[in-house]
């Protein structure tokens, strides 16, 4: 059994490590610091942590003000509020100014589980992806979360980093992550599976089973949505028979759309989009919800068979 980690624990710990060396790091939260784990930073550096209560719009625009004075601001809340509740502040006060504000959004996707639809952000990548200057990372596990946070701290400009609520198995090792460069996890030329976030694990399980049936899959962990690694996607489109995209997000505007945009302009090929299809989420166990929304490894295997038929 692989090691299982909460991405948000890793995030909180990484912030503390970064905060020791970099005195310009300031952290903000909106009454969710115990869930997002920014409370670890708050405890260590109380003078550089500000809680804004249940007021995300103020938090976003205040972050812009801090950044205008040279601060590197990390701020956190649930993905549903980070992306939707304060979108105009993110667009106009943060991205338009190209400020050093790093939005680390936790509890994304249906894997939030029992809290249900109101708390399951399924549109956040779409909302963030359309704003100029925004960089977007969706780490698949603990080590990748640590690397992504470090990259964001050391790279100019705004970031949106999407984390989940549940523990996730460790699939990658530390310091392998390259910002803007997709990670090819398995080589193969029969077909390509591109996934991000928790769907990388489901895809990995599918790839192992497909291998037993003699199907060689190229599995790509596309952790950086912006800037997108077009080269790796075009290679996959031209060297394999089609692409399956897996995301815990609506199939409109997120990872699947990113792939569609690259292949349709460069090397049109068959793309099967596996994600949330014009529905809201609902309460349930994360594993039950993956089944309900046809996002299990078995569903991915079936899509692969369909693509090769």
């Amino acid at each position: 059994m692989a090691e299982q980690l909460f991405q948000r624990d890793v995030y909180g710990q990484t912030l503390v490590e970064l905060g020791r060396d970099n005195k310009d790091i300031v952290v903000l939260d909106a009454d969710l610091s115990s869930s997002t784990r920014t409370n670890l930073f708050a405890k260590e550096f109380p003078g550089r942590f500000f809680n804004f209560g249940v007021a995300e719009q103020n938090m976003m625009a205040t972050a812009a003000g801090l950044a205008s004075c040279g601060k590197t601001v990390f701020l956190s809340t649930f993905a549903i509020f980070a992306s939707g509740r304060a979108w105009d502040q993110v667009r106009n006060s943060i991205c338009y100014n190209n400020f050093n504000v790093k939005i680390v959004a936790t509890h994304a996707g249906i894997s939030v589980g029992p809290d249900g639809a109101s708390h399951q952000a399924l549109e956040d990548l779409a909302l963030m992806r359309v704003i100029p200057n925004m960089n977007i990372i969706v780490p698949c596990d603990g080590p990748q979360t640590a690397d992504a946070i470090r990259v964001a701290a050391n790279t100019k400009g705004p970031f949106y980093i999407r984390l989940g609520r549940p523990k996730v198995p460790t699939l990658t090792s530390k310091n392998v992550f390259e910002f803007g460069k997709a990670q090819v996890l398995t080589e193969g030329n029969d077909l390509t599976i591109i996934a991000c976030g928790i769907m990388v694990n489901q895809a990995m399980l599918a790839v192992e089973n497909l291998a037993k049936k003699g199907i060689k899959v190229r599995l790509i962990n596309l952790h950086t949505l912006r800037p997108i690694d077009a080269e790796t996607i075009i290679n996959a489109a031209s060297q394999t028979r089609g692409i399956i995209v897996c995301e815990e997000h609506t199939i409109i505007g997120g990872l699947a759309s990113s792939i569609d945009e690259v292949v349709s302009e460069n090397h049109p090929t068959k793309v099967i989009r596996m994600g949330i299809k014009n529905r809201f989420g609902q309460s349930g166990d994360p594993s039950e919800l993956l089944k309900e929304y046809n996002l299990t490894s078995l569903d991915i295997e079936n899509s692969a068979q369909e693509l090769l038929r």
Partner: protein
Amino acid sequence: MKYTKDNLRDLEAKAKNIRRLIIRMIAKAGSGHPGGSLSSTDLITALFFSVLRHDPKNPKWPERDRFHMSKGHCCPLWYALLSATGYFPEDKLFTLRQLGSLLQGHPDRRTPGIESASGSLGQGLSVALGISLAARIDKKGYRVYVLMGDGEIQEGNIWEAAMAGAHYKCDNLCAILDYNGFQIDGKTCNVMSLEPIVDKWRSFGWHTIEINGHNMEEILSAYEEAGAVKGKPSIIIAHTIKGKGVSFMENICDFHGRAPTQEESQQALKELA
């Protein structure tokens, strides 16, 4: 009297000159927002020339006081003041709103002296709050001033920031409310009443100073009073006249967002001579 008559006369003359620039810029651009630019002119002219510690030759001076215009549509006023205090040459003013201009239709960081964009209302008080907190972290003594419109404070974000400013005891933060009583659709009292406005800010934990926003002596006293307050942020609630200084623009809602014609512009400049 704390300020000499000469001080006050000088500021009044400067304000008149700023008003002339505003009219000429907007007339040349063919669009823009004269009403609110003119109602805020005395408040911000006094701030730029007599209060703000800044160095236009060294715009990144770390100890500088900061100014942010949350009601971004009144940027012709900001641009005129930045030019008049030496951030860029006056001829640039007449490129307002043109393709490729340093002077965008709403504030943008490409303009020398502007550190944060605005235009979407209700966000600037939060931006100023962030600057205030940065000063606290860095143990710097600078102050931050932010201009808000009265219609603007109908935005919920303003009240989130109001709560936070008091919670964090931001006494280096001074908001200026241009209470001219008008917004695009009419009088604020008819569109969405703000009263009792002083009580609202006081109940949110702010030090309130109510003044006539066209009286230089009251304006200077208000900034001085705000600067002495400890443990809470201040707001100067300034009663003003929309379109102040141009008879046919005063209290006329249409001039919130309409440029004067050539003829109107000539008439306005005559009145401001």
